[in-house]
C-alpha cells in the first residue's frame, strides 16, 4: 500500500458493496470493513494527508492528530460492534446507510478544512435519516422528515458561517475558531444543532426512538459525538458552552422520568451525557477537555450498549413502552445483565467506565470554582442514575410481571452486547489505557478514597430515594402519552401558521397583486441576481463599521463578498439552499 486511504473512503467502498453482496459474504463484509478501516487508520501518521487543491482552496481529507485519532478509534470500534449487533439485518438500505453514515462521521472527524467538514456534515444527516426511514412505518417516515428539516436548517447555518468566515479571513483551515463575530457564531450554532443544545434538541428525542432496532445504536454513536469533536476542535474554552452544557445535563432528566418509551428515555439521557462533554469543552482547561473527550469515548460505548439491550427487547417482544414491559429478566437474563452493566457505566459507578471520565469534568468545574455549575452537574449525576441507571433496567426487566416470556436475544446480539459490556468494565477498571489516548497528558487519579466514597454515597442514596418512592406509590406511574417538547413548535405551531397564512394570504393577494406584479417584479428579479450578496452585506456592513473599517477598506471588503457570491464560489448558492429549505417546509407541512 503506497499511501493509506482517508478513513472515510473504506466505509464508502463498503457502503457501495453492501447492495451487491448477499448472505454470508455481506455479513463478512460488514465485520471486515471496520477492521480494515482500523488497520488503515493506524498506518496514517500524524499530520495532514490527502491534500487537494480545488477552486483555489486547499482541502485536507485526512488531518490526523491526537484529537481526531481518539474519535477515529472509537468510531471504528463502535462500527464493528454495531455491525456485529446488526448481523441479522437483511435490508441493504439499512446496512448501506449505516456504513455510509459511519464513513461520514469519520469524514467529519478527519476533515482538515472547513469545506470538507461541511460536505461530510451534510452527508452525515442524509445518510443517517435512512436509518430512521428503514423502519418503514408512518411514524418513522414523518419523524425522518422532521429530522432532516432541522438538520438542513443547521447545515444552512453552518454553510453561511463558513462562507462568511472564508471570505473574511481567506483561510479554510478547520482549527480553533473561537466565538468572534457573526461568521463564527453561525458555525457555532450549526454545530449546536447536531449537538442537540436545549431548544434545538427535539430532533433527537423525536427521531431516534423511531429508527430501526440497529439504526438507533449507530445514531446514538455518531451525530452528536462528531459535533462534540467539532466543538472541541473549534470552540474550546468558550464560556457560554459551560452553561449550555450544564442546561443539557439537567433539563432532559425531568422528561426522562415521565417518558414511557424506553428508547426515548435513553434519547433524553443521551442529551444529558452530551451536556457533560459540552460543559467540559466550555471550561476548556486540559483536564476539562480530557474529561469531555474521554467521556465521549465512554458514552459511545455505554450508550450503544443500552440502546442494544433495549433494541434486543424490542426485537424479541415488538414492544418498547414501559407500560407493556416488565419481568423480562426471567427469560432474557444475559440481556438484562448487559443492560445493567451499561446502566452502571452511564451512572458512573466506580469500576465502570463513566466513573473515570465524568469525574474529570466535575473536578475541572470544581477547580475553576464554578459552584452553580458544579451543583447542576452533581444533580444531573444523581438524576441520570435515577432514569437511565435504574428506570431502564427496572421497568424492562423487573417491576411487575408483564407475562411476556420472549426468547433470549440472538447470539450475535449477545456477543455484541457482551463485548461492549466487557469494554465498559475494562475501561472502568484500567483507565490508564484510555488516558493514554487523550489529547493532553493526564495526571488525574480517579480512584481516591474520597471520590469512590462520595460517588457511592450519591448513587446508593439516589437508589434509596427510588426504592422508597416506588414502595410508597409516589413514583409516577408510567402512562401512555406524548409529552410536549420543543418539537411542538414545528409540529403544531408551524402547521397553525401555515393554516393561518392559507386563510389570510388569498385576500391579501388580491390587494397586493397590483403592487407585486407591477412594482416589485423588477425588484425581485434584481434580488434573485444578487440577493445573497446584498443580504450578507446588509448583515456585515454595520459590523465592519463598528470594527473601525472605513471608506476604501469597506468598499474592498464589500467588493470581495459580491465577487465571491456572484461567481458561485460558495459551496452552494445561498438562494438555492433557501429555496430547498422552503420546498422541504411545504413538503413536510403540506
Amino acid at each position, binding site marked *: 500500500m503506497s499511501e493509506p486511504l482517508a478513513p472515510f473512503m473504506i466505509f464508502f467502498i463498503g457502503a457501495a458493496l453492501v447492495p451487491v453482496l448477499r448472505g454470508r459474504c455481506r455479513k463478512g463484509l460488514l465485520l471486515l470493513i471496520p477492521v480494515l478501516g482500523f488497520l488503515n487508520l493506524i498506518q496514517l501518521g500524524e499530520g495532514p494527508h490527502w491534500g487537494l487543491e480545488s477552486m483555489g482552496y486547499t482541502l485536507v481529507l485526512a488531518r490526523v492528530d491526537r484529537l481526531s485519532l481518539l474519535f477515529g478509534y472509537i468510531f471504528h470500534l463502535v462500527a464493528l460492534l454495531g455491525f456485529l449487533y446488526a448481523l441479522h439485518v437483511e435490508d441493504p438500505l439499512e446496512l448501506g446507510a449505516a456504513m455510509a453514515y459511519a464513513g461520514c462521521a469519520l469524514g467529519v472527524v478527519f476533515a482538515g478544512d472547513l469545506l470538507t467538514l461541511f460536505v461530510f456534515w451534510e452527508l452525515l444527516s442524509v445518510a443517517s435519516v435512512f436509518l430512521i426511514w428503514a423502519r418503514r412505518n408512518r411514524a418513522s417516515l414523518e419523524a425522518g422528515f422532521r429530522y432532516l428539516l432541522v438538520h438542513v436548517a443547521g447545515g444552512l447555518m453552518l454553510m453561511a458561517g463558513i462562507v462568511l468566515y472564508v471570505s473574511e479571513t481567506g483561510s479554510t483551515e478547520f482549527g480553533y475558531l473561537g466565538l468572534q463575530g457573526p461568521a463564527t457564531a453561525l458555525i457555532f450554532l450549526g454545530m449546536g444543532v447536531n449537538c442537540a443544545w436545549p431548544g434545538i434538541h427535539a430532533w433527537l428525542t423525536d427521531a431516534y426512538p423511531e429508527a430501526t432496532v440497529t439504526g438507533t445504536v449507530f445514531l446514538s454513536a455518531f451525530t452528536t459525538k462528531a459535533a462534540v469533536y467539532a466543538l472541541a476542535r473549534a470552540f474550546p474554552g468558550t464560556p457560554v458552552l459551560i452553561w449550555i452544557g450544564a442546561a443539557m445535563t439537567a433539563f432532559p432528566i425531568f422528561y426522562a422520568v415521565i417518558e414511557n418509551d424506553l428508547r426515548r428515555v435513553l434519547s433524553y439521557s443521551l442529551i444529558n451525557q452530551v451536556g457533560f462533554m459540552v460543559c467540559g469543552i466550555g471550561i476548556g482547561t486540559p483536564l476539562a477537555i480530557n474529561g469531555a473527550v474521554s467521556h465521549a469515548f465512554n458514552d459511545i460505548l455505554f450508550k450503544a450498549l443500552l440502546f442494544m439491550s433495549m433494541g434486543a427487547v424490542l426485537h424479541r417482544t415488538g414492544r418498547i413502552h414501559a407500560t407493556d414491559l416488565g419481568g423480562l429478566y426471567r427469560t432474557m437474563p444475559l440481556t438484562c445483565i448487559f443492560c445493567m452493566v451499561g446502566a452502571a457505566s452511564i451512572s458512573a459507578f466506580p469500576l465502570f467506565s463513566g466513573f473515570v471520565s465524568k469525574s474529570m469534568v466535575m473536578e475541572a468545574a470544581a477547580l475553576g470554582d464554578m459552584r452553580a455549575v458544579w451543583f447542576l452537574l452533581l444533580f444531573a449525576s444523581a438524576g441520570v442514575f435515577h432514569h437511565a441507571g435504574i428506570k431502564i433496567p427496572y421497568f424492562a426487566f423487573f417491576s411487575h410481571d408483564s407475562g411476556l416470556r420472549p426468547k433470549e436475544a440472538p447470539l450475535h446480539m449477545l456477543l455484541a452486547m457482551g463485548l461492549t459490556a466487557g469494554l465498559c468494565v475494562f475501561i472502568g477498571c484500567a483507565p490508564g489505557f484510555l488516558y493514554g489516548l487523550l489529547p493532553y497528558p493526564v495526571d488525574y487519579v480517579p480512584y481516591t478514597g474520597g471520590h469512590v466514597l462520595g460517588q457511592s454515597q450519591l448513587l446508593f442514596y439516589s437508589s434509596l430515594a427510588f426504592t422508597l418512592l416506588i414502595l410508597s406509590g409516589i413514583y409516577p406511574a408510567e402512562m401512555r402519552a406524548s409529552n*410536549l417538547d420543543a418539537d411542538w413548535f414545528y409540529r403544531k405551531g408551524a402547521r397553525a401558521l401555515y393554516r393561518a397564512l392559507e386563510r389570510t394570504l388569498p385576500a391579501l393577494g388580491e390587494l397586493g397583486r397590483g403592487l407585486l406584479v407591477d412594482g416589485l417584479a423588477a425588484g425581485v428579479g434584481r434580488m434573485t441576481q444578487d440577493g445573497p450578496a446584498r443580504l450578507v452585506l446588509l448583515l456585515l456592513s454595520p459590523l465592519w463599521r463598528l470594527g473601525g473599517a472605513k471608506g476604501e477598506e469597506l468598499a474592498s471588503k464589500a467588493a470581495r463578498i459580491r465577487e465571491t457570491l456572484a461567481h458561485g464560489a460558495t459551496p452552494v448558492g445561498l438562494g438555492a439552499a433557501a429555496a430547498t429549505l422552503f420546498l422541504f417546509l411545504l413538503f413536510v407541512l403540506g
Partner: protein
Amino acid sequence: MGEGGAKKERRYLFDKPGNVRRLFGVYYPWLGVLLLAELLVDRHVIFPWEGWPGFYAAFGFVACVALVLAAKYVLRPLVMRKEDYYE
C-alpha cells in the same frame, strides 16, 4: 403471576419472596456502611461542603426526591397530552 400459573411455570429468582428479602437484607446495611466509611477514608475536598458528614448521601437522596416530585407534579401536568396528540 398468579399462584395457579406458578405450578406450571418455573419460579424465577425474584419470584421467591425470600430472595427479595435477602437482597434488601444486604442493601439497607450497605447504606449504613457507606455513611460510616467516612470515618475511615481520608478525603481531599475542593469545596468545603464536600467534607460535611453525609453530604453526598443527603444530596443524592434529596435531589432524586425533588426530581421525581417536580417531574410528576410540575412537568407532567404541563406537557402531557394524549398519545395520538400529533396524529
